[in-house]
């Protein structure tokens, strides 16, 4: 049967073009790969190659014709033994229908809600049995214990990063792990964040459960392509075939007097990305329970720690296997007048503000988000339904931050419950300065939180 050669689309945006030149004439034999014509698109002049073998039966569009639509027949190719007489039927045949058919077959979903993601069922924190003993641990020790317990439990879990093994961790988080697990499972890497993040992703694709430590998340900017493009997106792009169970962890946000390049808070950067889970704990108990959960999770998890919390002591339940649910905020203190929401070190400021506000007769409810993706908006909304007021607190910059996200959520989900606009307390919109006085000014202050809480309560 004669085959129609159609005007090809030669770029993602091309709709029509000029048939500049024929390089074959009627009666010529062509083989796949032979250049048969030149076509000018909106971007360039392209050569068109034959796909099938045969004889050029008829050139339907003369050279030099402008505005030839994509998929319009431009020539007829005859197979062995066919003559030009068999062309007639083919020329009048309707244009191929396949190009428009697929789009028409699938009706658009009736409402976006019909295909909205199912709400995640997230468990509550497990009950700590009555009579459980608590030990006081630093956040540093809690993180180390979490890793050690998971490495004992699962042979595929290993730790890699700069100075994690022989140096015992740049911040001593991995202290003792080399002695217990050896250098097969506690691996010192060269200072090549981009490379070792990618090696970690590959190991996860290969069936292991890597914990990749960044000396700080500021250095993970070198590696963010691997975290987002490779770790977060590959499951989706593979139609669910490829899993990437990996934890990227390390200190995030401001430390003390290390200036802008070592002080950024990446909470909102990672919380923005579908395909990741993002955790930023405050207490040692949450650090332990959530890091254990992160290591067991089949997805890539970004685990944001805080250098200034590593040495803080908190009570941690003495349980064999203390694992907390990812995606669940915690109401740290109940109150009736205003909801204060934060995470990580922001909770230190919040708890100071709660005490101060109590002194002036404002009962503040304090919520620790703990997980930033998926964000437990339900707990925040429920609280605001009670208090009708909300102040968000974070060490990140204000623009497109966690507070901005919470404000938008409250506006759309709890508009009628709000008695005042949501206020945000954040780092100032500048790179973090080195000078002690300026650094202090740039970070959120307890006084800022108190002022914001009073403002939303319409109190002096």
């Amino acid at each position, binding site marked *: 049967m004669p085959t129609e050669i159609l*005007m*090809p689309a030669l770029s993602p945006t091309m709709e029509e073009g000029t048939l500049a030149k024929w390089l074959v004439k009627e009666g010529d034999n062509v083989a796949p790969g032979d250049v048969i014509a030149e076509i000018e698109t909106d971007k360039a002049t392209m050569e068109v190659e034959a*796909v099938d073998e045969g004889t050029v039966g008829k050139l339907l569009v003369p050279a030099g014709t402008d505005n030839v639509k994509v998929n319009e027949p431009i020539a007829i190719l005859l197979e062995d033994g066919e003559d030009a007489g068999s062309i007639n039927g083919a020329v009048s045949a309707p244009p191929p229908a396949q190009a428009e058919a697929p*789009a028409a077959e699938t009706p658009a979903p009736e409402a976006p809600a019909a295909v909205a993601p199912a709400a995640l069922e997230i468990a509550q924190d497990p009950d700590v049995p009555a009579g459980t003993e608590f030990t006081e641990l630093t956040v540093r020790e809690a993180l180390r214990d979490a890793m050690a317990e998971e490495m004992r439990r699962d042979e595929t879990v290993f730790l890699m990063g700069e100075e994690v093994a022989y140096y015992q961790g740049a911040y001593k988080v991995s202290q003792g792990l080399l002695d217990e697990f050896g250098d097969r499972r506690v691996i010192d890497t060269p200072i090549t964040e981009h490379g070792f993040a990618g090696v970690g992703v590959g190991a996860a694709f290969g069936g292991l459960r890597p914990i990749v430590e960044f000396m700080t998340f500021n250095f993970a900017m070198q590696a963010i392509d691997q975290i987002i493009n*490779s770790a977060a997106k590959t499951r989706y792009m593979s*139609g669910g075939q490829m899993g990437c169970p990996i934890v990227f962890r390390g200190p995030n946000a401001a430390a003390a007097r290390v200036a802008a390049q070592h002080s950024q808070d990446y909470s909102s950067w990672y919380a923005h990305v579908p395909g990741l889970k993002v955790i930023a704990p405050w207490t040692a108990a949450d650090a332990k329970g959530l890091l254990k959960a992160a290591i067991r999770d*089949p997805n890539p998890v970004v685990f944001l720690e805080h250098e200034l919390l590593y040495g803080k002591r908190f009570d941690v339940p003495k349980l064999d296997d203390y694992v907390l649910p990812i995606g669940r905020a915690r109401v740290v203190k109940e109150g009736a007048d205003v909801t204060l929401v934060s995470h990580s070190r922001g909770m230190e400021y919040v708890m100071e503000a709660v005490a101060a506000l109590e002194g002036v007769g404002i009962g503040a409810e304090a919520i620790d988000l703990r997980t930033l993706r998926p964000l437990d908006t339900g707990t925040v909304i429920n609280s605001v339904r009670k208090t009708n007021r909300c102040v968000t607190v974070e060490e990140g910059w204000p623009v497109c931050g966690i507070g901005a996200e919470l404000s938008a959520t409250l506006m759309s989900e709890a508009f009628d419950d709000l008695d005042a606009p949501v206020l945000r307390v954040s780092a100032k919109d500048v790179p973090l300065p080195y000078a002690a006085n300026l650094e202090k000014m740039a970070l959120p202050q307890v006084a800022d939180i108190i002022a914001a809480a009073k403002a939303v309560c319409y109190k002096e």
Partner: protein
Amino acid sequence: MATAPKAASRRRAAAPAPKEELLKYYRDMLLIRRFEERAGQLYGQGLIGGFCHLYIGQEAVIVGIEAALEDGDQVITGYRDHGHMLAMGMSADGVMAELTGREGGYSKGKGGSMHMFSTEKNFFGGHGIVGAQVPIGTGLALANKYKGTDRVSFTFFGDGASNQGQVFEAMNMAALWKLPVIYVIENNQYAMGTSVTRATAETHLYRRGAAFNIPGEEVDGMDVLAVKAAAEKAIAHARAGKGPIVLEMKTYRYRGHSMSDPAKYRTREEVPDAREHHDPIEHVKKMLLDAKFANEDELKAIDKEIRAEVTEAAEFAQSSPEPAPEELYTDVLAEA
């Protein structure tokens, strides 16, 4: 294998290969060629969207390597990946249907030309960011070593990617930890429109690992037997625990970088010259005919079979439905 990088002579005389082996290479390379030609055609009809990077001209590289590897050895590459998938035994139907963005595609239509995977066939993608697959392939090798298997990771990248920083970072770790990874540089001489000589200070890419004492070899990537012989040596090296090795495959792509590239950065004579004098399929065809392993008619019959397979794949790729709207929200996260 010498530890110092050393160039092999180009187009060395390949050892004679048995009939069945040559016929298999002929068939495998022809399948890729015909598949790609058809993909180009479907792109022209608007049935394939976005970017579409064809492998035409480079077929001997993956077919020669596939002939050397064993079950469980892994392959990972960049965005010019259709040939690798077909050679690894992934179905033409599933690959073509992914190109058209349909439910029957390997990624259910969510990945497209540059992002396909088959864990069953040990094909780990299909990666769109130039060079990103190199640390990932190195990580696959780390997992192999960690688990105590003797499997090898074939990590493919182009001459363009060979300039990326993360390639060197990965090579350093692979050499340091003696990981079983074989870096296959497909040097098709153009990084999009920039020739190797305009992009790379050291154009002998088999020396890319020299700073880390990684041995390298230059291979005629248009000769499937040379590719297979080099791959076998490299596999023996990697399996023996000697660490990574670089194979520079000198090859050539006939088409533009992608479907929308008119390839004006090279001379008009360059492509026909490669086709006429170095075509990897013609090379095997000649060996088959010279050795009287097959006659023209028999080879034509193979071509016909392959055309039928590709036509069927193209039909499947057009009849498979678009993904259901519900698929928009699936596969983002695994259930914990």
